[in-house]
């Protein structure tokens, strides 16, 4: 299987006596759009944290683009092309929408400290490129009119979109979306669904998405992994998942 972009191998996370994630193995191929679902407290966000390096694994390995990244720091993994959004929005609140994107956008070199302080021509050129490219991204997500607004002042739905926009500025290969549709109304959700589909094509992305909204997940994901109590209980095509007795049990059992 040479065309695996990303995989985890039996990753486990324990906090004291509690096992939050237990021996989960995922595999993503380039260009796939995969869903990660499960009841509340199933360990989905914890798994995202282990993948992105926000938290360290207790056991197991994470592989990205053929490289073992288990020991890498979060920013090193991001540098390899792994970007994420957050379940509870974590934009940089006092920065403008544009600056949120510009900060992540690495752009061409020549934008170092001394060039910046002395305002050298190379710096100015590079700064203009960063600005132009960031504006293009904002336009793509229909956020251009809000470019100069402080991100904390944006409407909720726009903040969610800005988070995706900011993640795209990293020019990632793998995009991890943590409940991107949370708190949106049905129309917004449908729009977002289409946007995510289109972004995958436009930016040549592989996407792993956590989402509670079944319509959303079933509608766009090619494959789905199901977690419950930190363990993978099922995985397969949306139609198979819908009928899997273990999944039904987990969801109904959770509603008890």
């Amino acid at each position, binding site marked *: 299987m040479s065309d695996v972009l990303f995989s985890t191998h039996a990753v486990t996370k324990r906090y004291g006596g509690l096992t939050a994630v237990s021996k989960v193995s995922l595999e993503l191929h380039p260009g796939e759009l995969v869903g990660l679902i499960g009841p509340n407290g199933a360990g989905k966000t914890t798994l995202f944290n282990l993948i992105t390096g926000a938290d360290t694994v207790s056991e197991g390995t994470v592989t990205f683009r053929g490289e073992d990244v288990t020991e890498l720091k979060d*920013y090193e993994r991001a*540098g390899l092309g792994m970007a994420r959004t957050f379940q509870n929005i974590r934009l940089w609140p006092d920065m403008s929408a544009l600056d949120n994107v*510009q900060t992540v956008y690495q752009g061409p070199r020549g934008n170092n*400290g001394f060039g*910046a*302080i002395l305002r050298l021509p190379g710096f100015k050129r590079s700064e203009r490129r960063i600005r132009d490219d960031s504006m293009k991204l904002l336009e793509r997500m229909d956020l251009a009119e809000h470019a100069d607004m402080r991100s904390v002042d944006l409407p909720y739905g726009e903040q969610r979109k800005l988070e995706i926009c900011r993640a795209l500025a990293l020019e990632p290969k793998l995009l991890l979306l943590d409940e991107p549709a949370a708190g949106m109304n049905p129309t917004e959700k449908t729009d977002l669904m289409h946007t995510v589909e289109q972004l995958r094509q436009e930016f040549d992305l592989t996407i792993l998405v956590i989402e509670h909204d079944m319509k959303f997940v079933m509608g766009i994901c090619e494959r789905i992994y199901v977690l419950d109590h930190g363990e993978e209980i099922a995985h397969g095509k949306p139609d198979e998942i819908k009928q899997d007795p273990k999944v039904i049990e987990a969801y109904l059992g959770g509603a008890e």
Partner: protein
Amino acid sequence: MTLASFLPLAIELGPQGFWWMNVLFLVAIYSLLGLSLNLINGYARMFSLGHHGFWAMGAYGAAWFTIQFHGHMPGVPLFLMSCVFAMGVAAVGGLLIGLPCLRLRGDYLAIATLGFGEIVRIAIQNSPREALGGSLGLEVPRVIMDVTRKTKADFRVLMVAIGFVLVALTAWAIRNYIRSARGRAMLAVAQDETAAGLLGINPVRSKVLAFVAASAVAGLAGAVYAHYQGIITPLEFNFMEMVKIFLIVVLGGLGSISGCVFAAFLLIFVEQWLAKLPADAGFFKDWWQVEYAAILVLLMIFRPRGIFGPREITDVWRDLKAKWAKKRSAA
């Protein structure tokens, strides 16, 4: 070769003039200290209480360098090189304390840096007399120009000019830095470090850069201060100074450059004016230390982000003008 040979100034200053030059020079020094602390506390939102330590390192670094090379080198290059050396010493100090400590949470970092500042002072106090002068202090040879009764006024005016040139350069450099990729990364780390790390920014590098740069500026302030004073003692660089610098930053507004210079002027002017008053000048002078601490507490309670907040004074002025214009058009 001294500057006096280039600049036949022969300025005349009355006692009032001398006093004002002293105030202005100190305003420049405290502005430099405030601007650099602002970079750490205002923009990078780290909490350092060790800035007086870097200031002291700069002052003693410059003094030591000047003594070593005095007579082997012409005065003006020696002055410049001692300043560069002082910045280097303070920057290395900033790196040494920054690398291990910048992972620490806000208030723990504050206490660790405070401990560092105190260690610097104690180390200078206990240093051998022939190295750093111990508790008696260190005399800095006059290298930039001979300071005699005739040229004393020239010297003061010159130092004030140097001080404000440095303030302007520092303010300009900080402004440019903030509006660059590195600067944005620093602000991002300040506002949400976890998100910054997950989006490809190395938080430690960003913090260490800001910390080292600020230490170097504090070192520069120390160097110029040492050359101006002619004699420096370890007790000048105590924790009270740290609080004073902090008060300037808070008074001026965390993250505001012009506010910082304005606050430095306000505080130094009041302090020096009170020092000039006779000993029995009454309550305002006697209780100044108390009033000063009370101002700090009241500020924190009512305006924790500074009088004008992070806005520049020009912004405040613009807003006020807009408000007046609106009132006038309404009337």
